[in-house]
Each structure stands twice: as structure tokens, then as C-alpha cells.
């Protein structure tokens, strides 16, 4: 498992810690939110520029951007946004080796739509600064 997959899994686990956010509808799967769910969070890896430094075979430093799509049915999603951001702040290093900062450069995007339901999707973007070992994608330890 790469360090990137470790990070995504750690974020999903963090959001599912009791009490779970979005009634436990937290996933990294790419499928539409079903009508039975009033809230849902989709965790996705966005992109990750890396820096190999000047030493061949040395560690690689990464700025991995993640995005959390926060879906809400029947409201503007502001409460879920606040709860999610607060949860992300509770575990600065995600409990993972090689992670220096797990909530760098946060950015929020808001979107709403009126259909049969009032819908909102607020997206939190942030960067995880971390290191992988010896020219690999395996977490630094």
C-alpha cells in the first residue's frame, strides 16, 4: 500500500470515529449519493507534487492534496462543514509515520442546487505534507 492510500484510509477512519460524521456515510468510492442518505462524505485524492531533493535514493517529500465532498440534502451543509473541519483538526499527523502536517493550505468551495430536494455540496481541499522512503511511494518510517 502506498503512503497515499494510507493517508486516504486514515482520513476515512478519522471521519468515521465515534460519533461518525454524515451518519457514517463516509466513503472513497465513486458512486452517486443515494436518495436514502441525507448526508454523505466522499474522500478523494486529488494530486501530489513531490520533491526528490538532491540525494539520489533519498526520501521524497510530498504535498498531497485531498478533497472531501460534503453532500447535504435539505440544507446548506454548513453544520457538516464545521463538524468535518473540526474533526480534521483533531489528528494533526493522522497517526501515520512520515506525516508532518495533515491540514495545510485549506480551501473551501460551496455549491448548491434546487431540485426535488434542496441540495448542497461543500468541498474542503487541503494538503497533507508527508515523506516517503528512499525513492519509493512507501511511507517514511
Amino acid at each position, binding site marked *: 500500500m502506498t503512503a497515499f492510500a494510507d493517508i486516504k484510509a486514515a482520513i476515512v477512519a478519522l471521519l468515521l470515529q465515534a460519533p461518525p460524521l454524515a451518519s457514517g456515510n463516509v466513503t472513497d468510492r*465513486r458512486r452517486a*449519493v443515494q436518495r436514502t442518505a441525507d448526508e454523505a462524505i466522499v474522500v478523494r485524492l486529488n494530486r501530489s507534487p513531490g520533491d526528490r531533493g538532491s540525494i539520489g535514493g533519498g526520501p521524497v517529500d510530498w504535498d498531497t492534496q485531498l478533497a472531501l465532498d460534503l453532500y447535504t440534502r435539505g440544507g446548506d451543509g454548513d453544520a457538516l462543514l464545521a463538524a468535518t473541519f473540526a474533526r480534521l483538526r483533531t489528528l494533526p499527523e493522522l497517526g501515520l509515520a512520515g506525516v508532518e502536517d495533515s491540514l495545510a493550505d485549506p480551501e473551501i468551495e460551496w455549491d448548491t442546487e434546487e*431540485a*426535488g430536494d434542496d*441540495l448542497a455540496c461543500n468541498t474542503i481541499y487541503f494538503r497533507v505534507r508527508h515523506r516517503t522512503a528512499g525513492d519509493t511511494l512507501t511511507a517514511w518510517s
Partner: protein
Amino acid sequence: MYEADLRAMFDDADSGVDATLAGSPVRGSFNNPTQRASLGTVGINTTDPTFWLCTADVPAEVDGVELVVPGAGTFRVRDVADDGMGLTILTLGKA
């Protein structure tokens, strides 16, 4: 005569339903299919309720008024489209 033909479209119990629009009785066709709203990256399933009725039955001020459809619920009119041929489509949202 033409309006009578249009009204006949809603006579059938399968296609027509009695409803209440802004407190007045109307008859038309109610549909509420599932659609996917393209929010975020994966989208979210929702509904797209509409009510078709004769334009002659539509009150002058209909935007935002309530439509009650027995067995389906109470909705708020959020868009009005006159087809120019005697029918109007009300697009509905949560009341």
C-alpha cells in the same frame, strides 16, 4: 374544443390526478422521477417533481405557491413553463 381535448388527456385515472394549487382544485399529471444532480464529483440522487396542467387553470401568480398532491405531498412551485399550446409545466420543489 381544443382546450376540452387537452383536459381529456387528464381524465384517465392513470394520467390525471386531482390536486390543489394555491388553494384551488386543479387536475393534471404529476410525475416524480429520480434524477442525478451533478453536484461534486459523484453527484447525488434526488427527485424532479413536475405537474402538467391546462394553462387556463394556472393562476396569474403561481411562482412559489403551494401545490398539494394527495398521496405525494405538498410542494412549492419553483419554475413555470407555458408550452404555448395550452399546457403548462410546473417544476416543483420542497414546500
